[in-house]
């Protein structure tokens, strides 16, 4: 974080993510239970750093779609307002006003739309059986009430359209992709036979650049294991290019413009 933000100390870096007084949401990815979900130890470390940066526990919310998903991934649902909260959208509910962009129309989770001022997106580095990969952009499907409607055509253009919703564009400040254990096939369910210890975290403010980079990591691993590229399986994540196009401008998928710094 210190290197990423060009600060003199890690704490200074975290202070750039959020200011005291803001409620910070940690959007984890828990659909797959233990093994292929955002690691609770990572989330605990992030929460600790936020606290050290002046964000009190009461202003930190860990969230995903369902309480049951959170619990199956090793989190404990918690609703006390003086502590770190951990809550599924099924409890927090959804906004009543429809948000629309392009092909997508959804109700946003109250946690994103009303509770949080800032969000740190915490996806997992993994394959997705329909959308190709599920990384930064796809993880925000966990913020809408109808994600099942938007997997057609490998999620294109829906993933990009959902990420254009104002609350998502304005509140997601940082993505930290959990690649401690990554998965190159069989996702989003946890398939240990297709997982490998990538032992890395990917940090970016540009979700498109992160997705493009993560996709290439997965493709390289697939090639190494003798598997077909996603394009041949008709699940190339074209939504990444759509997210970068002139109608979306959510970031860049041009490798010449992505500065990859390995620490």
């Amino acid at each position, binding site marked *: 974080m210190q290197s990423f933000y060009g600060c003199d100390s890690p704490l200074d870096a975290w202070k750039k993510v959020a200011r005291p007084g803001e409620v910070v949401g940690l959007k984890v990815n828990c659909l797959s239970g233990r093994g292929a979900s955002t690691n*609770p130890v990572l989330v605990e470390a992030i929460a600790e750093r936020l606290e050290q940066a002046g964000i009190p*526990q009461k202003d930190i919310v860990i969230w995903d779609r369902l309480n049951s998903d959170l619990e199956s991934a090793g*989190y404990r649902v*918690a609703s006390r307002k003086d502590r770190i909260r951990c809550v599924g959208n099924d409890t927090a509910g959804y906004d009543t006003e429809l948000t629309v962009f392009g092909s997508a*129309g959804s109700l946003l989770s109250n946690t994103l739309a009303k509770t949080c001022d800032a969000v740190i997106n915490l996806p997992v580095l993994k394959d997705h059986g329909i959308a190709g990969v599920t990384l930064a952009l796809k993880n925000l499907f966990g913020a809408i*009430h109808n994600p099942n409607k938007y997997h057609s055509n490998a999620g294109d253009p829906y993933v990009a359209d959902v990420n254009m919703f104002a609350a998502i564009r304005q509140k997601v400040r940082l993505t930290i992709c959990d690649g401690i254990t990554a998965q190159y096939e069989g996702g*989003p369910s946890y398939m240990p036979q297709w997982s490998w210890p990538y032992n890395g975290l990917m940090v970016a403010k540009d979700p498109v650049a992160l997705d493009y980079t993560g996709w290439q990591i997965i493709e390289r691993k697939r090639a190494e294991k003798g598997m077909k590229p996603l394009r041949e399986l008709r699940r190339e994540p074209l939504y990444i290019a759509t997210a970068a196009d002139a109608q979306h401008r959510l970031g860049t998928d041009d490798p010449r413009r992505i500065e990859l710094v390995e620490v």
Partner: protein
Amino acid sequence: MAGIGFPQGLALAARAAEADAQFTVEARFYDKLPYKKIKCKLCPRECVIDDRERGYCGVRENRGGTYYSLVYARVCAAHVDPIEKKPLFHFLPGSMAFSVATAGCNVNCKMCQNWDISQSRPEQLNSTYLPPKRLAGLARQYQCPSIAYTYSEPVVFCEYVLDSAEAGRDAGVKSVVVSGGYIQEEPLKQMCRRVDAIKIDLKGFTEKYYGQVVHGELKPVLNALVSIRKQGVWNEVVYLVIPTLNDSDAEFRGLAGWVKAELGPDVPLHFSRFHPDYLLKNLPPTPVATLERAKAICDAEGLHYVYIGNVPGHPAESTWCPNCRRAVVERAGFTVRAMHLDKGKCRFCHQTIPGIWGEAFHV
């Protein structure tokens, strides 16, 4: 994680799990695949679903390689409606239908009037547990000769429809289905064996329209209509006319020709007026003149019962005898003002008017 747990969370989760269990039954139409995946065989979409994931409809979930419906008896809307509201015009006119819905739909129409339930997941809505026998009992209690499965998409709560239709029959209550007809052959056959009438929303007449506006396919819906016809279940067809999207003469002519050839000239065809909603708020309501043009084209093609809907007071809400041209069922909005039928025949010229008529009409 240390420091962020709270016992109340577990209690909430336990209550949610308990509530979930009473609405959950194993789905009846799916195949098991390797690695705990399943393929849904309920609708033509044939979703292949990973463990812990749901299909396009959002109400069916793979749990450890077994596929479950999460909406069995999970009723999120229940009303007593005139049967004309469905609309079914040749089925017990003037009667009331005990109308129910659950969350979910297997398409995503941009003009959906009920998107708040059809595009939601069951846990996002307040629901009541209404098992089949109780549903049939309520229909009788409210003096409804039929149960209508409507508002959202009955295909996605198929198991509940099948069991409730049987319970209804046992209690002397008929069942009608209001559907988009995006369903596979086998579940449709099972439905046809149990229900008394099916109204299909034929939302357009081109694959392009179905792809762009409905997010489905036309061909399976046409196949379903033919199948319903073959199985002898009473069927009516609704076509929602949306300005600029599905309102060309060519579409109306193609539709009329297809209905006449494949379903016969006696199948009631309703042209309904569109009102802006959901993702199609940029278009105006359908001009009445467009609906009248559609009706004129279908009349000229030889269809006998072409109606105009969502235009209260329009003469084309009434049923006209195709032989003597007199009104045999006079309607105003959802109200039946007069019936001139005698055992399904025109009282003026004795022409048989196809339908299921019964004794439901009361002045």
